[in-house]
């Protein structure tokens, strides 16, 4: 019998039924016990839905706010001493110093790779996961729709299905190297397996996913990612658009094939005419031309502004104060948290090697062993070709006089917080075609990254080289992205070799080419036999991403090298002293004189008033943080480029090479534009005024407070760009043209590591620095502990200890338990 709680308001009819409101009350009352039983279940279902559902791209509340899986578990110190079971490749002992740099003592290469993999995972698991996901086109799955353009870009190359095949092929060729790869993977996966939940990096908590097991073919992804950073651009699209906007004559005026003041890496280069002809012997090519070439979505990547390159130099015994060769390297990349590089010392079978690795591979990329040192800079070659296909609208393209089918393939990209995205691509003889954002044009892309290669062979060889000749033989296995390898050995030999494959077109002009004949596709080929020199007469050699040779070949390799300012400054300082020691070379790493001042200065003197020039009185181009002149100079030279670009054509999206443009403006009284000419004096004055206005808006009206440190600051951001995991902006010296480079505003690209290695007869002496820190864990003491050293020009001096002593290290990991 139901309990009637609201009797007073109920009305009973003659036939005993309740009506109106009371009727509802009775139903409520009748089913109240069942409702009371159901309510907790209903609440539970709603609650679990609330917790388990992904609301947009936010992590599930169940993952973030349930204590079981909450980030509250993240350990205060993840770097506790560990004693673990012996590796399948033998017992390994690791001592980790106060900077978080491990010294790995292993009986063989495989065991060392196992330990390296374990340490990379321990300190950089999220970074490795992101890199792998980026190249496989799986970033949107964890980052949401914001990563779709990246995934769409990468998926067309099908690396996820190609790399296992490449790996299987290389395994047959070099079993020893394959074992090293597999040992590295085993080390990474061992860490993932034994990792306590409290050691799961915070990024996995915030993005709500768990790390993926590492596979041997992932080794190929790192190189493809570096290809993207160092070689990929869509300049061919922008060049074709610019040519269509400006017409050929005006285009050629501003986009010259050769630097007007060449400063080659190999001043002693020579090549026979027949060899040169053989190198560029392609079939005649046709550049796409017409009024309707517009690519508003072409990749924005202004290499001049980024100054993505590096410096390396080596002084031989005749130029060195101690009589020992000294090799220096600093690689310019985005400085981020965690750092690109990870420093390790390996003692394998009693032999020492040390240097910078990149998480994702077991090799020392820039470093030294007991007898040989090596470093690298980017070759800045043009390694992306776009071919326009003639299509019939029913899935065919015209090739060699007949219609050939395009192979259509689809990829489904899972998107976090959204519906999966289905993308259609086509395979062609010239490469994959993605019509998205191509303005209805069918453009196939041929990029160096699509070439099968195994750079591990080069680094494995370098690690074991005993002299420069063996090191040279090792780097010949290096294919991409092409690099200028600098080498030295403890016998006093030095050398420089540019290794990697180039795309040598018969016509070096940039632009989209017509893909109508199979032979139009230019293969990538090696040119290292022409680009090298050993023990040069001047006693030193250097490279800073400028052109390689003062020869027609230069334009076939690239028409957009880095400005020669850094290279010229290195030469100035090399020649300043008869002999150089480690201290002088360290100062060279930190040099912040911008030689573009030598071009801009006469331009300003010609067009500005004495009052305006007074700001530069006594200044020599040194980009230091406490002066006003560098602010005025840097702001002006960037504004001048913007104004020039606008003057050439308001719709021009493709900037001329900066240094060439400055020289052109300096030399000419009138500058040709799309609708006539513009006076250089007007352009310079307008740029100065515009720059002044921008500075006033940014820094206030008081010019005396426009110190460079207020204008030029460095941003060291976490790879997710989360401000809480990034560093606040700080003042920093340098510019995009100084040896101690600092590109963009705020600066995000700079020396990502610095090495100075002296090879003495008794062993190497090194000074090293990694910009950032060893650990990718934001709450580790080694997260960004080397940033101050980077800013202040400090290094650490590693001691070449060859025997493991647990008491010598603050932390240790031993794979010794049976």
């Amino acid at each position: 019998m139901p309990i009637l709680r609201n009797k007073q308001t109920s009305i009973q009819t003659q036939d005993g039924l309740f009506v109106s409101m009371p009727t509802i009350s009775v139903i409520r009352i009748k089913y109240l016990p069942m409702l009371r039983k159901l309510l907790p279940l209903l609440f539970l279902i709603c609650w679990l839905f609330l917790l388990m559902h992904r609301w947009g791209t936010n992590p599930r509340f169940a993952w973030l706010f349930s204590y079981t899986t909450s980030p509250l578990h993240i350990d205060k110190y993840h770097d506790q001493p560990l004693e673990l079971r012996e590796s399948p490749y033998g017992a390994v002992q690791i001592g980790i110093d106060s900077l978080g740099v491990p010294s790995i003592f292993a009986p063989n290469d495989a065991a060392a790779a196992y330990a390296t993999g374990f340490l990379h995972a321990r300190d950089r698991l999220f970074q490795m996961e992101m890199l792998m996901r980026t190249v496989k086109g799986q970033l949107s799955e964890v980052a949401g729709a914001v990563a779709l353009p990246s995934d769409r870009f990468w998926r067309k190359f099908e690396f996820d299905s190609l790399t296992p095949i490449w790996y299987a092929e290389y395994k047959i060729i070099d079993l020893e190297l394959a074992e090293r790869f597999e040992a590295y993977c085993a080390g990474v996966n061992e860490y993932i397996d034994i990792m306590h939940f409290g050691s799961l990096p915070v990024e996995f908590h915030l993005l709500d996913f768990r790390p993926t097991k590492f596979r041997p073919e992932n080794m190929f992804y790192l190189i493809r990612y570096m290809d993207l950073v160092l070689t990929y651009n869509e300049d061919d699209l922008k060049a074709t658009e610019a040519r269509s906007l400006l017409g050929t004559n005006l285009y050629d005026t501003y986009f010259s094939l050769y630097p007007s003041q060449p400063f080659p890496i190999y001043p002693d280069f020579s090549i026979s005419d027949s060899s040169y002809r053989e190198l560029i012997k392609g079939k005649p090519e046709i550049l796409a031309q017409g009024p309707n070439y517009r690519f508003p979505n072409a990749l924005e990547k202004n290499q001049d502004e980024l100054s993505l390159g590096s410096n390396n130099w080596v002084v031989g015994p005749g130029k060195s104060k101690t009589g020992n060769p000294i090799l220096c390297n600093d690689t310019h990349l985005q400085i981020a948290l965690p750092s690109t590089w990870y420093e390790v010392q390996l003692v394998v079978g009693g032999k020492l090697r040390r240097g910078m690795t990149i998480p994702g591979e077991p090799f020392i990329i820039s470093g030294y062993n007991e007898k040989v040192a090596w470093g690298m800079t980017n070759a800045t070659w043009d390694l992306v070709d776009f071919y326009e296909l003639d299509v019939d609208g029913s899935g065919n393209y015209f090739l060699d006089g007949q219609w050939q089918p395009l192979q259509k393939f689809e990829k489904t990209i899972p998107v976090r917080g959204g519906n999966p995205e289905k993308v259609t691509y086509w395979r062609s003889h010239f490469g994959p075609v993605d019509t998205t954002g191509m303005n209805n044009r069918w453009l196939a892309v041929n990029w160096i990254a699509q070439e099968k290669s195994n750079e591990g062979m080069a680094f494995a060889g370098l690690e074991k080289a005993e002299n420069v000749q063996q090191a040279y033989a090792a780097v010949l296995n290096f294919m991409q992205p092409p690099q200028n390898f600098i080498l030295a050995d403890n016998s006093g030999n030095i050398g420089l070799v540019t290794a990697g494959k180039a795309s040598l077109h018969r016509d070096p002009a940039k632009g989209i080419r017509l893909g109508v004949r199979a032979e139009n596709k230019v293969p990538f080929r090696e040119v290292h036999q022409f680009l090298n020199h050993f023990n040069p007469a001047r006693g030193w050699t250097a490279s800073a991403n400028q052109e390689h040779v003062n020869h027609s070949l230069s334009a076939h390799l690239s028409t957009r090298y880095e400005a020669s300012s850094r290279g010229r400054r290195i030469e100035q300082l090399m020649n300043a002293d008869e002999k150089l020691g480690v201290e002088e070379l360290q100062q060279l790493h930190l040099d912040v004189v911008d030689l573009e001042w030598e071009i801009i200065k006469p331009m300003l003197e010609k067009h500005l008033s004495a009052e305006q020039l007074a700001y530069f009185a006594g200044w020599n181009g040194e980009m230091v943080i406490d002066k006003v002149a560098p602010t005025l100079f840097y702001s002006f030279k960037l504004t001048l480029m913007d104004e020039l670009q606008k003057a050439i054509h308001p719709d021009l999206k493709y900037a001329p090479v900066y240094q060439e443009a400055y020289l052109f403006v300096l030399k000419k009284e009138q500058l040709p534009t799309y609708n006539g000419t513009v006076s250089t004096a007007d352009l310079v004055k307008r740029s100065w005024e515009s720059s002044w206005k921008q500075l006033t808006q940014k820094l206030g009206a008081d010019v005396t407070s426009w110190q460079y440190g207020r204008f030029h600051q460095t941003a060291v951001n976490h790879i997710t760009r989360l401000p809480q995991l990034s560093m606040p902006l700080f003042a920093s010296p340098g510019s995009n043209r100084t040896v101690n480079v600092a590109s963009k505003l705020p600066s995000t690209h700079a020396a990502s590591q610095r090495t100075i290695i002296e090879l003495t007869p008794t062993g190497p002496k090194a000074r090293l620095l990694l910009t950032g820190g060893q650990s990718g864990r934001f709450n580790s003491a080694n997260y960004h502990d080397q940033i101050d050293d980077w800013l202040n020009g400090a290094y650490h001096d590693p001691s070449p200890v060859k025997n493991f002593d647990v008491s010598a290290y603050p932390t240790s990991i031993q794979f010794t338990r049976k």
Partner: protein
Amino acid sequence: MLKRNQYLYFIVLIALVHSQFNVHSFGLFLLVSAITALLPIPRMRWWKYSLLQLIALGFCLALKFPDPAVLETVGSIVKTGGFGLIVATVLVSTITYTLVAWTVYSWITRFIFEKRLANV
């Protein structure tokens, strides 16, 4: 000497602390929550489950208090603040456990008791 009920409460507490420290899977935690609700504790009420979970979480936080750096940074990222992160975690964990345990208890345990009573 502890009474029988007190032993059972103690077992629930141990299970909660242990699972929340070591299981690290939300699904498994739900399972553990359901199992603890199967213990035949007479005169159980929903608020007693809440209280048990609050005590268990208190133990967890006392045994391993979160790293202040983690609290500050993660709290800032998820916009709760460090203290807010702890409060949110305690609230969510307590409500989850209470709802699971009380639902299981009221549907299964009570059903078994009713059957037993009916048989008596």
